[in-house]
Each structure stands twice: as structure tokens, then as C-alpha cells.
């Protein structure tokens, strides 16, 4: 083994354990790097440090209970995760939810997406060594968290969705607060560009780094902004519209470069799109009930159901096999982070350690989402 590693010129490859406790793996991801000097020869992800067996737990829980587990997967897109399960149950039982619920869900989803992208932007800057971005991002994210707290009672894991509707009606202040936030954030978002996007050091470090071709993006199942940066039209909001996405105008951000900078840009553009979606909906939230009539115990008909939503990270799929009982027979969460992680080794070979950090940042991995 040792002899094999020593190359002709007498140098030797070596291993570095990056993680599970490491500042830029954003949680407990462990990467075993094979390095030649600073150049990465191989990245082997070791995951499972926060594996809580959510799929097994879900087999013993009712559908309403499962929703509360999904928060804890991708905690930054908690609302979208909840929505996926709620939509699955509604579609399986063919329950029509009111327009009000649809619009509320859409606005909430986009607010969550904004909050998630803000956090990503701050952390991205921090990974690149610009710590200031982190606090700028958190300043703006705080406003969304406050809006969430007012309506749902929670800042991060909202549990706002339930099969058939949402838990509570909107707070009377909601519209006013959201409008105010949008107004402020529209002036703050250009600041983001000033701090990072236009910075020569930043562009030099991200352009051409971690190039992912369209064919590879599809083959690896890289979805979300990361996939769309390679030109993979995978936005579930466009391909399989749910909630109120079929009644708003927004552009699916598609870029062709597929490098770290494109992935960065895709998320920045997506924030503008989210703002535009909220802008279109916030003034006309229709009146209506917030909860369709549901039985106390939800039982899905026998069969297999698949529901996909677009979280901040990509396509989240919920696959449920039901045997007609109040608990599912088998639940599988197709988490976007899992597929996005699988591409890490492929695109970071031949780059430097510093590039790996940039690549990991632009893939926007959330570890509990990967481990489930």
C-alpha cells in the first residue's frame, strides 16, 4: 500500500480527514481527501453522523406526525419539506385545498427560500474568507425569521403545514411585514453583489472551478440552483407546478457555465425571482378557509405515491408506499443534498483544497438533509 502511493519522483500522496468537525463542512460531514501536495486526487464522503433514521421512524408515525419529522431534514427549507408531505397526502386523498392555503404556502415557501439563500450567501463568503458577509446575511435573514415567528410561532422549524391546509391563519401584521421586508431587501440585495459578486478575488476563485457538465448534472441527479447552473431545467415549480406556482410569473434561472461562479449567480438570481413571486402574491391573498375538512385519522389508499417539491437545495421527493393503514408501509425521502453530494468527488478532482471549500459552498449542502 505504502509503496504504491509513492510516485516516480519520490513524492507521496497523503490523506487528510476533513471533518466531521470542520468549519467549512457545515455540520458533521466527513470527507477523506487524498492529496498530492495541495491538489485533490480523490474525495470520499463519509456520511451518517446525524442519521436519525427518519424513514424508519416514519413507518411508525401517522401522516400528520411525519410532517414534524421532515422539518429536521433540511432545516433551512423546513416549510417546503412540510409542504411535500402535506401535498402528498392531499393528492393521494384528492382533497382540494382552498386558494388561500395555496397562496399562503407559496409565499411562505419563497420566504423560506430567501432565508435559506441568505444564509447560504453569508456562509459562502465566510468559507471564502470574507467573514463580514455572514453578518450582513444574518441581518436580513432575521427579518424573515421574525415574520415566520409572528405567524407560525417558530423561527426555523415551522411545522406550519398540515394535510388539508395550514395550522393557523396568517398574523394580521403578516402582509405589512412582508411588504416592508421586500422593500428593504430590494435595496440590500445589490449590496450582496457589491461585497462578493463583483470582487475580483471572489470571481477569480470561483470562475472555472468545479465545472459540472449538463450530462453529468443529469446523470448525478444534481438539482436545484446547482443543477440549473449547468443548464439542467429541473425546477419542479415549472415542471410540476404545485400550490400557487402555476399562477405566478417567474423565470427559471438557467445558466450554462456550470462552475462555482454560475452556481453562485444562479442563487443570487433566484433570490430576485423569489422577491418577484412574493411581490405578485402578497397583495392578493384570497379569502377562504385555511383548512379543508379532514378526518381525524388520515388513511391513504393502497398504492404508491410520489410528490416532489422544489426546496432551496433542489428537488425533494417523498415516496410513500401505503398498505391502507394510518401509518405508511414505507417512506423514502429523495433529498436534494444527497444527490448533490454524490457529485462532489467528480467535480473537485484536480483542484486545490481551497477550491474544494468553494465547491462545497456552492453545492449548498445541509448535512441533516443528506443523512436523514
Amino acid at each position, binding site marked *: 500500500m505504502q509503496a504504491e502511493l509513492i510516485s516516480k519522483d519520490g513524492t507521496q500522496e*497523503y490523506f*487528510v480527514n476533513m471533518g466531521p468537525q*470542520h*468549519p*467549512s463542512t457545515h455540520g458533521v460531514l466527513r470527507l477523506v481527501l487524498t492529496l498530492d501536495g*495541495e491538489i485533490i486526487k480523490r474525495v470520499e464522503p463519509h456520511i451518517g453522523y446525524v442519521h436519525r433514521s427518519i424513514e424508519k421512524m416514519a413507518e411508525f408515525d401517522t401522516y400528520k406526525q411525519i410532517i414534524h419529522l421532515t422539518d429536521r431534514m433540511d432545516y433551512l427549507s423546513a416549510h417546503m419539506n412540510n409542504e411535500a408531505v402535506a401535498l402528498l397526502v392531499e393528492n393521494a386523498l384528492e382533497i382540494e385545498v382552498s386558494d388561500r392555503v395555496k397562496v399562503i404556502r407559496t409565499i411562505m415557501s419563497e420566504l423560506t427560500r430567501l432565508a435559506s439563500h441568505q444564509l447560504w450567501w453569508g456562509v459562502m*463568503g*465566510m*468559507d*471564502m*474568507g*470574507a*467573514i*463580514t458577509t*455572514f*453578518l*450582513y446575511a444574518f*441581518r436580513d435573514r432575521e427579518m424573515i425569521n421574525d415574520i415566520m415567528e409572528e405567524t407560525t410561532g417558530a423561527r426555523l422549524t415551522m411545522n406550519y403545514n398540515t394535510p388539508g391546509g395550514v395550522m393557523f391563519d396568517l398574523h394580521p401584521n403578516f402582509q405589512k411585514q412582508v411588504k416592508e421586508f421586500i422593500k428593504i431587501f430590494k435595496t440590500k440585495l445589490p449590496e450582496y453583489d457589491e*461585497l*462578493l459578486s463583483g*470582487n475580483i*478575488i*471572489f470571481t*477569480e*476563485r470561483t470562475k472555472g472551478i468545479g465545472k459540472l457538465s449538463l450530462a453529468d448534472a443529469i446523470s448525478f441527479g444534481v438539482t436545484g440552483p446547482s443543477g440549473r447552473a449547468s443548464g439542467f431545467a429541473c425546477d419542479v415549480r415549472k415542471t410540476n407546478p404545485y400550490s400557487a406556482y402555476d399562477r405566478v410569473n417567474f423565470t427559471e434561472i438557467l445558466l450554462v457555465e456550470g462552475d462555482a461562479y454560475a452556481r453562485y449567480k444562479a442563487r443570487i438570481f433566484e433570490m430576485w425571482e423569489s422577491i418577484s413571486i412574493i411581490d405578485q402574491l402578497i397583495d392578493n391573498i384570497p379569502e377562504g378557509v385555511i383548512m379543508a375538512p379532514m378526518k381525524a385519522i388520515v388513511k391513504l389508499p393502497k398504492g404508491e405515491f410520489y410528490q416532489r417539491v422544489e426546496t432551496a437545495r433542489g428537488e425533494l421527493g417523498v415516496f410513500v408506499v401505503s398498505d391502507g393503514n394510518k401509518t405508511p408501509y414505507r417512506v423514502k425521502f429523495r433529498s436534494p443534498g444527497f444527490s448533490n453530494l454524490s457529485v462532489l468527488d467528480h467535480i473537485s478532482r484536480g483542484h*486545490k*483544497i*481551497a*477550491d474544494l*471549500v468553494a465547491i462545497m459552498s456552492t453545492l449548498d449542502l445541509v448535512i441533516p438533509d443528506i443523512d436523514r
Partner: protein
Amino acid sequence: MNAIYDFSILTGGIHERLSGLMSPTAVMITEMVIIGTLLIVFVALMGLVLVLAERKVAAFFQLRLGPNRVGPWGSLQTLADFLKLLTKELITTKSADKFLYNLAPFIVMLTPFLALGVIPFAPGLQIMDMNIGVFFITAVSSMGVLGILIGGWASNNKYSLIGGMRSAAMVVSYELSVTLAIMTMVIMTESLSLSEIIASQSDGWWIIKGHIPALIAFLLYLTASTAETNRGPFDLAEAESELTAGFHTEYGGIKFAFFFLSEFVNMLVVASIATILFFGGWMPFHLPFEWAVGFNHIMDFIPGIVWGFGKVTFVIFLMMWFRWTFPRLRIDQILNLEWKYLLPMNLVNFLLMALIALSGFYL
């Protein structure tokens, strides 16, 4: 020049008093002890002040308050942190090279002390006026990287090793730019003694008198010396998002404090040299014109020590500004920047300066 602000009266008085009491050898030893103690106290104080300043500046850039609980405006926060570091257990990793591992923090700490020895902060406030002061500082400050390299190597940690190697590659290259930028100014000053360099700016600072080459030299010096002190955006020797903490990953307690403090004292040294070469050290702001005599005279009333430290503070603030706004560069980009851009620019600038000096086209 206002004589009341001259520290040589004070130091000369002490020297005379001591000479009256004991033999010349004893006087020298006593003075050495006094100066050494004062230097340690000065460095410790500057460390505390600079760390607090860094945190306040960072807080200012990051829309937060910074330390504000311990003492007024958090002024005692760094002292509290220092006490905490002092009382922490000293852990040596099992497979570390014990001797080198323990030696490294001292080497790192030693170099700024040596450099501080020749820097004049105010008229007469200089420990030793060497006639090759500039040369001495350049020689001494390149020793700091040894400590980082030794620390990175001896920790027996791969992160430390990578950090140490990065630092070595970087400092060795940037040393060139720093030295060349200094040499560019030495053409003008025609002296290697720091006090004479300051004296040569009594009719105006070199950054004003030296035309564009001096300005370019200042920018080059600022960039290169930021890299030499391992501060952001060139902090990739520690690069906490890549290498956890780089070369000092395995250091804790007071040993870590040494690494930490040396960064700030190095910054002080670097900023002092920048002030001496480009902004006239403690020399008040003078204009090299006939009609500006009155103005120059008013400027003389501000004590030299205020001018000296004011300008040092300004340069340090610039360096902090860099750190809290820029992302970090990658190792190959850093080396590219030095060898492909800064060094050629420096060489051209050096020639330009030489031409200007030959033609006498300066004020």
C-alpha cells in the same frame, strides 16, 4: 522642531543620572534591563490595544457592537481573554517534536521584538539608532516565518503542515516585494538609518515628495507586507475555513497567545516602517514650499509621538479594512500575484525611482 517634545532630553537625563551613580558597564546593564522591561510592557499593552481595536473595527464593519461587557466599551475584554489564555492547560500533542513545538512560539514572538528595537516612535524614542536600521528590519522580519514553519512541522498535524508550507512559500516570495519597495524609497532617502530617513522628510513626506513612484511603492509595500504578516486576504496559513486553524491548530493557552500576539505586533512593526518610509514617521505634516512656513510651524506644535502613533494607527486601520472586506486568495493565485504582478511592477518602479533620483526631478 519643538524641543519639548524630544524624548532624548528625558533619556539623556536618565543616562547622566545613572552614570553618576555607577560604572559604565553597570549603567549599560541597568539600561538594558529597564529598556527590556519597558519593551515587554509596551508590546503587551500594544497587543491588548490592537486586539481590542481589531475587534471593534471588525464589529464596525460587520454591523455589530463588538466587545462591550468587560469594562467601559469592552476595554478590558482583551485583558480578560489574555488571563483566560494564561490559565489554560498547556497541551503538547503526543507525537509532536516537543523541543521544536515549544520553541516555535518564542521564535515567532522574538522577531517583532528585535524589529521594534530600531524603530523610532517619537523624537528620541528609539532604543538603538543603527546606521543599517532598514537592512536590520528586513533581515529580522524574515525570521518570523521560521517560527510558523517550525510550529507547523513540529505539531505533527497535516493541517498545520499545510499551513506552515503555505506560509513559507508565501513569505519567501513576498519578502522580495517588501524589500524592493523599501529599496525604492531608500534611493530617495540616501540612508539606511531610520532616524535619518525621518530627518530627510522634515520638509515634506516622501509620499508627497516622491511623486507617483513613491505612491506605487507604498501600495506595493502595503499589499506585500499584509501578506508577510499573514493577515487577510492573505491569511491562508491559518485559513480557518480550509485548514481549521492552519499552523497553530495544535497550540493552546499561552503558546497560542504568542502566535496571536505576534500577528498584531508584526502588524505594528510593518505599519511603523510604512509610516517611517512614506509618511515621515513622527515628523509633522510639512509642505515643501516657501509660502508654507507658517503652516509647517503650526504643525510642529502637535507632539511627534501623536504624529507617529496617529500615522501607524492609520496604516493599521487600512490593513484591518482589507481583512474584513476581502475574501481569501488561493495559494497559486497568491504566488501568481507576487511573481507575475507585484515583482515586475516593483522592478519597473525601482528603475523609475532611480531615474527620478538621477534627474533630480523631485521636490
